[in-house]
Protein backbone atom coordinates (compact mmCIF):
# COMPACT_ATOMS: atom_id res chain seq x y z
CA UNK A 1 0.00 0.00 0.00
CA UNK A 2 1.31 3.46 -0.90
CA UNK A 3 1.63 5.74 2.09
CA UNK A 4 1.91 9.53 2.32
CA UNK A 5 2.65 9.44 6.04
CA UNK A 6 6.27 10.62 5.73
CA UNK A 7 5.31 13.55 3.50
CA UNK A 8 2.46 14.59 5.84
CA UNK A 9 4.58 14.18 8.95
CA UNK A 10 7.26 16.42 7.45
CA UNK A 11 4.59 18.99 6.49
CA UNK A 12 3.47 19.08 10.11
CA UNK A 13 7.11 19.40 11.19
CA UNK A 14 7.07 16.33 13.41
CA UNK A 15 9.82 13.82 13.95
CA UNK A 16 9.06 10.10 13.76
CA UNK A 17 9.33 9.95 17.55
CA UNK A 18 6.80 12.81 17.96
CA UNK A 19 4.33 11.16 15.60
CA UNK A 20 4.83 7.83 17.37
CA UNK A 21 4.04 9.48 20.69
CA UNK A 22 0.90 11.11 19.31
CA UNK A 23 -0.25 7.75 17.94
CA UNK A 24 0.84 5.81 21.04
CA UNK A 25 2.96 3.41 18.97
CA UNK A 26 6.69 2.76 18.66
CA UNK A 27 8.97 4.73 16.32
CA UNK A 28 9.65 1.39 14.64
CA UNK A 29 5.95 1.21 13.68
CA UNK A 30 5.91 4.76 12.26
CA UNK A 31 9.05 4.00 10.27
CA UNK A 32 7.63 0.70 8.96
CA UNK A 33 4.44 2.49 7.81
CA UNK A 34 6.43 5.28 6.15
CA UNK A 35 8.72 2.87 4.32
CA UNK A 36 5.66 0.79 3.30
CA UNK A 37 6.98 -2.33 5.02
CA UNK A 38 3.87 -2.54 7.15
CA UNK A 39 0.22 -1.71 6.47
CA UNK A 40 -1.45 -0.26 9.57
CA UNK A 41 -4.72 -1.59 10.99
CA UNK A 42 -7.95 0.30 10.29
CA UNK A 43 -7.84 1.68 13.84
CA UNK A 44 -4.35 3.12 13.38
CA UNK A 45 -5.22 4.40 9.90
CA UNK A 46 -8.19 6.28 11.40
CA UNK A 47 -5.92 7.71 14.10
CA UNK A 48 -3.55 8.98 11.39
CA UNK A 49 -6.46 10.41 9.39
CA UNK A 50 -7.75 12.29 12.45
CA UNK A 51 -4.27 13.57 13.26
CA UNK A 52 -3.60 14.83 9.73
CA UNK A 53 -7.27 15.92 9.30
CA UNK A 54 -7.50 14.09 6.01
CA UNK A 55 -9.59 11.19 4.69
CA UNK A 56 -7.85 7.81 4.93
CA UNK A 57 -7.85 7.31 1.16
CA UNK A 58 -5.70 10.41 0.66
CA UNK A 59 -3.11 9.08 3.10
CA UNK A 60 -3.07 5.47 1.88
CA UNK A 61 -3.56 4.24 -1.64
CA UNK A 62 -3.61 0.76 -3.08
CA UNK A 63 -0.59 -0.20 -5.23
Amino acid at each position, binding site marked *: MKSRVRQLREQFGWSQAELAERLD*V*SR*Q*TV*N*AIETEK*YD*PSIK*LAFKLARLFELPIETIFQED
Partner: protein
Amino acid sequence: MRAPLKRYYLRGIIPMLLYTAMIIASHVWAAPVDLAWVKAAWALSPLLPIAWVFHYYFKYLAECDELERKIEMDAIAISAMSGALTGMALLFLSDHALLALNQRELIGLSVGAICLGYVVTRYIGIWRFRA
Protein backbone atom coordinates in the same frame (compact mmCIF):
# COMPACT_ATOMS: atom_id res chain seq x y z
CA MET B 1 13.63 0.01 24.25
CA ARG B 2 9.93 0.80 24.64
CA ALA B 3 8.38 0.94 28.10
CA PRO B 4 6.22 -2.24 27.77
CA LEU B 5 9.24 -4.39 26.83
CA LYS B 6 11.38 -2.85 29.55
CA ARG B 7 8.58 -3.49 32.06
CA TYR B 8 8.28 -7.11 30.90
CA TYR B 9 12.03 -7.73 31.29
CA LEU B 10 12.09 -6.12 34.73
CA ARG B 11 9.02 -8.02 35.91
CA GLY B 12 10.58 -11.26 34.66
CA ILE B 13 13.72 -10.99 36.81
CA ILE B 14 12.21 -12.31 40.07
CA PRO B 15 10.37 -15.29 38.51
CA MET B 16 13.49 -16.25 36.53
CA LEU B 17 15.67 -16.10 39.66
CA LEU B 18 13.05 -18.16 41.45
CA TYR B 19 12.98 -20.63 38.54
CA THR B 20 16.77 -21.03 38.70
CA ALA B 21 16.62 -21.62 42.45
CA MET B 22 13.74 -24.11 42.13
CA ILE B 23 15.31 -26.07 39.29
CA ILE B 24 18.51 -26.43 41.29
CA ALA B 25 16.58 -27.34 44.45
CA SER B 26 14.40 -29.92 42.68
CA HIS B 27 17.50 -31.61 41.23
CA VAL B 28 19.72 -31.42 44.31
CA TRP B 29 17.21 -32.39 47.01
CA ALA B 30 14.74 -35.25 46.86
CA ALA B 31 11.04 -34.60 47.50
CA PRO B 32 10.46 -34.05 51.24
CA VAL B 33 7.83 -36.83 51.48
CA ASP B 34 7.96 -40.20 49.71
CA LEU B 35 4.50 -39.98 48.11
CA ALA B 36 3.92 -40.07 44.35
CA TRP B 37 1.89 -36.85 44.22
CA VAL B 38 4.41 -34.98 46.42
CA LYS B 39 7.24 -36.18 44.18
CA ALA B 40 5.30 -35.03 41.09
CA ALA B 41 4.56 -31.63 42.68
CA TRP B 42 8.23 -31.29 43.65
CA ALA B 43 9.38 -32.17 40.13
CA LEU B 44 6.88 -29.78 38.53
CA SER B 45 7.47 -26.89 40.96
CA PRO B 46 9.86 -25.02 38.56
CA LEU B 47 6.90 -24.63 36.19
CA LEU B 48 5.24 -22.14 38.54
CA PRO B 49 7.74 -19.31 37.99
CA ILE B 50 7.67 -20.05 34.24
CA ALA B 51 3.87 -19.70 34.29
CA TRP B 52 4.42 -16.43 36.18
CA VAL B 53 6.71 -15.19 33.36
CA PHE B 54 4.10 -16.26 30.78
CA HIS B 55 1.51 -14.21 32.70
CA TYR B 56 3.77 -11.15 32.33
CA TYR B 57 4.30 -12.02 28.68
CA PHE B 58 0.53 -11.89 28.06
CA LYS B 59 0.44 -8.53 29.83
CA TYR B 60 3.28 -7.37 27.58
CA LEU B 61 1.36 -8.55 24.48
CA ALA B 62 -1.63 -6.50 25.62
CA GLU B 63 0.56 -3.39 26.04
CA CYS B 64 2.41 -3.77 22.69
CA ASP B 65 1.55 -1.72 19.66
CA GLU B 66 0.25 -3.57 16.60
CA LEU B 67 3.59 -4.03 14.81
CA GLU B 68 5.30 -5.28 17.98
CA ARG B 69 2.38 -7.69 18.48
CA LYS B 70 2.67 -8.90 14.88
CA ILE B 71 6.39 -9.60 15.37
CA GLU B 72 5.63 -11.54 18.58
CA MET B 73 2.75 -13.51 17.04
CA ASP B 74 4.83 -14.42 13.96
CA ALA B 75 7.62 -15.58 16.27
CA ILE B 76 5.21 -17.67 18.38
CA ALA B 77 3.61 -19.26 15.30
CA ILE B 78 6.90 -20.09 13.60
CA SER B 79 8.46 -21.39 16.81
CA ALA B 80 5.44 -23.66 17.44
CA MET B 81 5.71 -24.97 13.89
CA SER B 82 9.46 -25.52 14.13
CA GLY B 83 8.96 -27.41 17.42
CA ALA B 84 6.24 -29.58 15.87
CA LEU B 85 8.34 -30.27 12.77
CA THR B 86 11.42 -31.12 14.85
CA GLY B 87 9.40 -33.43 17.10
CA MET B 88 7.75 -35.19 14.16
CA ALA B 89 11.04 -35.50 12.27
CA LEU B 90 12.68 -37.13 15.30
CA LEU B 91 9.70 -39.47 15.79
CA PHE B 92 9.74 -40.56 12.14
CA LEU B 93 13.48 -41.16 12.25
CA SER B 94 13.04 -43.19 15.45
CA ASP B 95 10.17 -45.19 13.88
CA HIS B 96 12.44 -46.18 11.01
CA ALA B 97 15.26 -47.09 13.41
CA LEU B 98 17.48 -44.37 12.01
CA LEU B 99 17.79 -42.62 15.34
CA ALA B 100 17.89 -43.94 18.88
CA LEU B 101 16.64 -41.20 21.20
CA ASN B 102 15.03 -41.60 24.58
CA GLN B 103 11.90 -39.59 25.52
CA ARG B 104 13.90 -37.02 27.43
CA GLU B 105 16.16 -36.27 24.45
CA LEU B 106 13.20 -36.16 22.07
CA ILE B 107 11.20 -33.72 24.18
CA GLY B 108 14.30 -31.71 25.01
CA LEU B 109 15.15 -31.26 21.33
CA SER B 110 11.55 -30.27 20.48
CA VAL B 111 11.42 -27.69 23.28
CA GLY B 112 14.87 -26.46 22.22
CA ALA B 113 13.61 -26.04 18.65
CA ILE B 114 10.61 -24.03 19.93
CA CYS B 115 12.86 -21.72 21.99
CA LEU B 116 15.43 -21.32 19.20
CA GLY B 117 12.65 -20.77 16.63
CA TYR B 118 11.13 -18.03 18.80
CA VAL B 119 14.43 -16.19 19.40
CA VAL B 120 15.56 -16.35 15.76
CA THR B 121 12.17 -15.38 14.27
CA ARG B 122 11.65 -12.54 16.74
CA TYR B 123 15.03 -11.02 15.94
CA ILE B 124 14.45 -11.44 12.21
CA GLY B 125 11.13 -9.57 12.70
CA ILE B 126 12.82 -6.77 14.63
CA TRP B 127 15.58 -6.55 12.01
CA ARG B 128 13.06 -6.58 9.15
CA PHE B 129 11.06 -3.68 10.57
CA ARG B 130 13.99 -1.85 12.17
CA ALA B 131 13.70 1.93 12.36
